[in-house]
């Protein structure tokens, strides 16, 4: 396979605009919740496999395109109301940045670690989005609200997962972004500046998502909350993710 084709394919799986639209279209068209979750983990891994096989020198336009894609989706995410779509856009904005470690010749093992660590909170979020669709018929912000009172256990898990997804310490994405900043600040300050700006936008978008879902008065209709064993499962996953983040931070920083 020629390097150009490989680069285009890699641009689909580690999304670069406009190839990034493929990923978001796939997410949009996939109605099966389990399949969506699987896609969220497998997609960036495919991207890492592809970039690992790239032999050509990286084109000069690649870095600007990476930063543009990440910023474009970070801005666009602010006005999304559909939770699955929101997760897809956040994934696009985050995964595009994986090109930066690629350019700095980070080992493939490390890249797999980065891709999985970034994908896991997003995967949890699409699973929760499916939970909302099941309960309310749609996973939309500002549609029903008040989840903190209506389904408190579900809301608690949802909030922590959103917090993990938007690169909050001590989850792995925080350390990955911190590492990219450390690597680039002295030689390519533009990368760090754009990354920090996008980080701010993700936090803004995360807060809008939280507010659009959990804030408000409780629903008058009785809605089934998340079962306690499921909460425990999510909690264990999140704790493992945080522990993995701390371990990763100790290793890469």
């Amino acid at each position: 396979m020629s390097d150009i084709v490989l680069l285009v394919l890699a641009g689909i799986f580690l999304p670069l605009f406009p190839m990034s639209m493929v990923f978001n279209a796939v997410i949009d068209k996939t109605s099966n919740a389990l399949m969506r979750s699987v896609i969220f983990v497998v997609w960036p891994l495919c991207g890492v496999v592809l970039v690992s096989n790239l032999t050509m020198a990286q084109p000069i336009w690649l870095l600007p395109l990476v930063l543009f894609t990440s910023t474009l989706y970070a801005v666009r995410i602010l006005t999304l109301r559909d939770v699955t779509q929101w997760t897809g856009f956040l994934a696009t904005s985050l995964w595009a940045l994986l090109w930066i470690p690629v350019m700095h010749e980070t080992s493939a093992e490390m890249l797999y670690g980065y891709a999985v660590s970034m994908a896991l909170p997003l995967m949890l979020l699409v699973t929760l989005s499916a939970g909302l669709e099941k309960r309310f018929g749609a996973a939309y912000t500002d549609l029903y609200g008040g989840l903190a009172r209506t389904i408190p256990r579900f809301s608690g898990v949802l909030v922590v997962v959103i917090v993990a997804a938007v690169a909050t310490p001590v989850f792995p994405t925080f350390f990955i972004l911190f590492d990219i900043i450390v690597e680039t600040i002295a030689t390519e300050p533009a990368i760090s500046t754009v990354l920090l700006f996008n980080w701010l936008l993700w936090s803004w978008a995360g807060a809008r998502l939280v507010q659009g879902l959990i804030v408000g008065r409780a629903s008058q209709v009785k809605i089934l909350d998340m079962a306690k064993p499921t909460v425990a499962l999510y909690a264990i996953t999140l704790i493992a993710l945080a522990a993995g983040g701390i371990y990763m931070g100790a290793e890469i920083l």
Partner: protein
Amino acid sequence: MERLIITVAVLPLISALFIQLFAGQFGRSIVKVSVAVTTIGFLLSIVTLALALTGSSPEAMSLAGDKGIILFDPLGTLLAAIIMGISLIVHLYSVRYMAEEAAYGQFFVLLDLMTAALLFMVVAGDLITLVISWYLVGVLLYFLLGQDTRSQIAYRFAFWTLITYRIGDLPLILAAALLFNAYDTWSLTTIFAEISANPYAHQVFGLPLTEVVAVLVGLAAFARSAQFLLHTWLPYTMDGPTPVSALMHAGIVNAGGFLINRFAPVFIHSGDVLNWIFIVGLITAVFGSLLMLTQNDIKKALGYSTMGQMGFMIMECGIGAFSLAIYHMFAHGVFKGTMFLSAGSVINDARHDDGVPKDELYTFAVEKQPNQARQPWLLMAAITLIVPLVILVLAHLLIAEDYFQKQGAVVLLFFGWVTGAQLIFATYRMRSQNIWRLVGLSVLSLVVVVLGYVFISHAFDLFLYPDEAFRAQLYAAASFDLLRFDVLVVMTTLIIVLGWLMTYYSEQNGVRRAQRSKRLWLNFYALISREFYVSDIYTRLSRTILALSGRLNVWLRWL
């Protein structure tokens, strides 16, 4: 000893985990665990502080090489004790105050996590721990302020806090990355030692690294301590629970002063950065106080009062009085915490009786009736100007004879003098049976305040920065160019004297003045009542970004 401070920092984490896990089994009484653990933590922090006071040398304990370092130094131990003290009071208060809340247990979990984050922040001995805890304080505060999940307003302003804090996180992350790149270690102690040995060894973007880092740390501190243009969140976050307001105004908002103190060895070699910090602090103090005076909502007035105080605290750092900023932080914390926590009782009492005695203070302050039969103005002017100056000079001479060689000390004396003069000036205008008794009491209270302030701040100086040479370096680093300093002092004096003259003039010619300058006055009032349009500008900016986001999504068909 370092194990003691780790125990203090870890205890709230254990409490939070315990409450989260067993709230279902033990019900609401489980919050007693949180209170008990905080009490133990407070006692241990006092023991640690006592050890530090008795001369135990600073130590560090590392959990993973140059990361996860817990530092046992005077600044960390002192602030840990203060945090635990305030946290304990807030815990005790919240047990009953929050009892009706649906998420009662969750509130204590968040409170414990916040206490832990603050503790880790002040005892952090490496940049990673510092950045993480600094970041988490903002996130936890967001959820504490949004404790009432039914309130959209509470969340709206909690978001303002979050986004401002996130803006403040970014420069700190950049500073940490730059320092690591230059010194190849995360350990603050090692970095500071290397900076002291060779301050200008590294350049970045064509500037000395220390200057760039000082600017970034300063920006981080400005966002956290609500300096002008990054202040809008502070007066509007009153919809959060009262204990959270107390914790925020008494502790969290002071973190800017802590951060500047933590990076004191960097600021020594930071060129003019401290001068700029002084100017930002000065602007914040003036604007905060101005906005406080014009609020008709008492909660917002309290918020702006905190902003003014934070400006003053940052200003103290800007003149090199680093330890004084910590003392200010402590004193303001106790004062503002008390005000917030007693607010409910005061409102309740005021419903039955306003409690305001109809004495001379009432007629002066509330009914705005100044004394018509006054003492000779020359005599009173002399007392107004000379007495505070004499008190301040004598008090400072007791501390150190060379005190007046430091520009920072002169600035503080200047502010002390203006404040003292203002107090006596106000007394002179009051209606009183015995004006001399009133003046005497005012002077006595001024003496007590000045002596307390001078001696306690001196004690803080000796404890936090025992090395006299280091203290001298801090003052030297904050020195202004003599010409600029003189211009600043003369300008400030002129503004204050002009203010006094205007007050006098307006009293003499009140009606005519009102007719002539009514339009100007109304414009000025509109400007202040809209809080200089800062919030409006931010709101417009955020709406523009959201509109752009929406348009992009439409153009790109939501893919």
